[in-house]
């Protein structure tokens, strides 16, 4: 119980301060482009009541899950290839790094030309924006495996695929998870950019909603939902897996 209080109080105070500052700014300015927290709260409740926000959230999460899963598969595959072969690494790594540093929005025109103004274009942007991070994370994780474990494995008689599967991959897992955590953030941002810019007809998503919202309060309500999802997925999904792996190995610093 006490641990929960210790963990919960600081972020709650942080958010309260943010809202207080925002409320003060909204109070002293009279422009309608800075709505008060209360107005945004009302817009949020209306959005939830008329079903637009829940539907958009659900569609967006589905797209996110699909895109990120695809990015994990593609990125991990490429990362393993890079780790396995020196010539491949020399030849392909610069390309992957170039993709990694490419801003997500740069993919939008290409996505629209290839896939049209469709759902697939949005997913393409999200995958293209996140798989390079997974690939580089996989490569780094495997290269950082402590040589001691590999040496121990080899002296125990592990060779070839068995050595990779039983020693190298599990040893690389904590570093890989750090990369996955970063890559999911990329996927999320790229997906939002894709949804916002590609106005796929009939498609709904938080990004689309952002584009269609008429007033600032509704836009901010959607931004709040996006932010909350970001924190929730990061902490409860990716973070939980990461903490489990680290706790099992005694890598968690207990505070």
């Amino acid at each position, binding site marked *: 119980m006490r641990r929960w209080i210790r963990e919960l109080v600081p972020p709650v105070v942080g958010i309260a301060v943010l809202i207080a500052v925002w409320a003060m700014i909204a109070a002293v300015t009279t422009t309608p482009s800075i709505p008060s927290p209360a107005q945004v709260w009302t817009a949020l409740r209306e959005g939830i009541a008329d079903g637009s926000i829940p539907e958009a959230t659900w569609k967006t999460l589905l797209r996110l899950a699909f895109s990120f899963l695809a990015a994990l598969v593609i990125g991990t595959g490429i990362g393993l290839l890079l780790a396995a072969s020196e010539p491949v690494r020399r030849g392909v790594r610069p390309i992957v790094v170039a993709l990694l540093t490419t801003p997500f929005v740069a993919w939008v025109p290409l996505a629209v030309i290839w896939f049209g103004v469709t759902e697939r274009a949005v997913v393409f942007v999200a995958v293209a924006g996140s798989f390079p991070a997974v690939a580089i994370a996989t490569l780094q994780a495997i290269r950082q495996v402590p040589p001691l474990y590999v040496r121990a494995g080899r*002296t125990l008689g592990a060779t070839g695929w068995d050595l990779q599967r039983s020693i190298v991959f599990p040893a690389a897992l904590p570093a890989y998870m750090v990369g996955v955590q970063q890559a999911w953030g990329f996927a999320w941002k790229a997906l939002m950019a894709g949804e916002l810019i590609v106005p796929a007809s009939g498609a709904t998503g938080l990004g689309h909603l952002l584009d269609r919202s008429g007033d600032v309060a509704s836009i901010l309500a959607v931004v709040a939902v996006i932010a909350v999802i970001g924190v929730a997925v990061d902490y409860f999904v990716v973070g939980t897996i990461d903490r489990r792996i680290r706790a099992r190995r005694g890598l968690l610093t207990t505070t």
Partner: protein
Amino acid sequence: MSRAAIATRDEPAGAPTPPTISLRRVTMTRVRPTGEHVVAFEDLTFDVERGEFLCLIGPSGCGKTSTLSVIAGLERPTSGEVLVDARPVSGPGPDRAVLFQEPALFPWLSVRGNVDLALRFAGVPDAERDERAATWIARMGIEGSAALQPHELSTGMRQRAALARALACDPPILLGDEPFGALDALARERLQDIVQRVRVERAGRTTFVFATHNVREAVLLADRVLVMSAAPGTLLEEFRIDAPRPRTLDDVLVARVVSEIHDLLIGEVEEP
């Protein structure tokens, strides 16, 4: 054989069995990232007989670890020949178990999981693995910790788990690279007792080669101690220790050999 290169204090007993490990004029040169060549050890020639417990001792940086590394097959010597059972060593294998200075347990597996994985690598059938793992974990006196992860154990317990993992596979050769170097005095003594016991139990079945910089440890454990010079390591002297086991540091013979080796090493370290 070129035993003439080594000053022998006691005549070696006749050896009818062929040596399990033979090093023939083995030299290892390393290239530093700066391009500088460093000789780790030079012109090492010695045999280890089946069932013998050999300790390599010498000042830090004399190439003990590198010597074990070439026997383990983790590294290749620059020149010379390393033979195990008359066959050149081409790589590491489960016939030569290694205890590293750090316990080298896999942190994602429990103690039992570590031993089980080693048994699987060694090709032990599924049905036998559970029992063998449990037996060796119990023999090391850590049965209460079998389900724990390595980080939950003390360093001494971890090294015992590593010993269980190594011995469970019934290796003909056990190599130890200063395996007790990082332990506190009590844990070290406990491990030395265990290894002495294992040496007696497995007499003639397992050949031991341990590197250490601890003279007492070497004399307690070994049938024969090879003293290496400061870098680049060469063989200085050989001591045979015939004291009965289990030995203690109070044994007169043990104490005498300890002081002799000690004097020799002091001279080696102080030489310019």
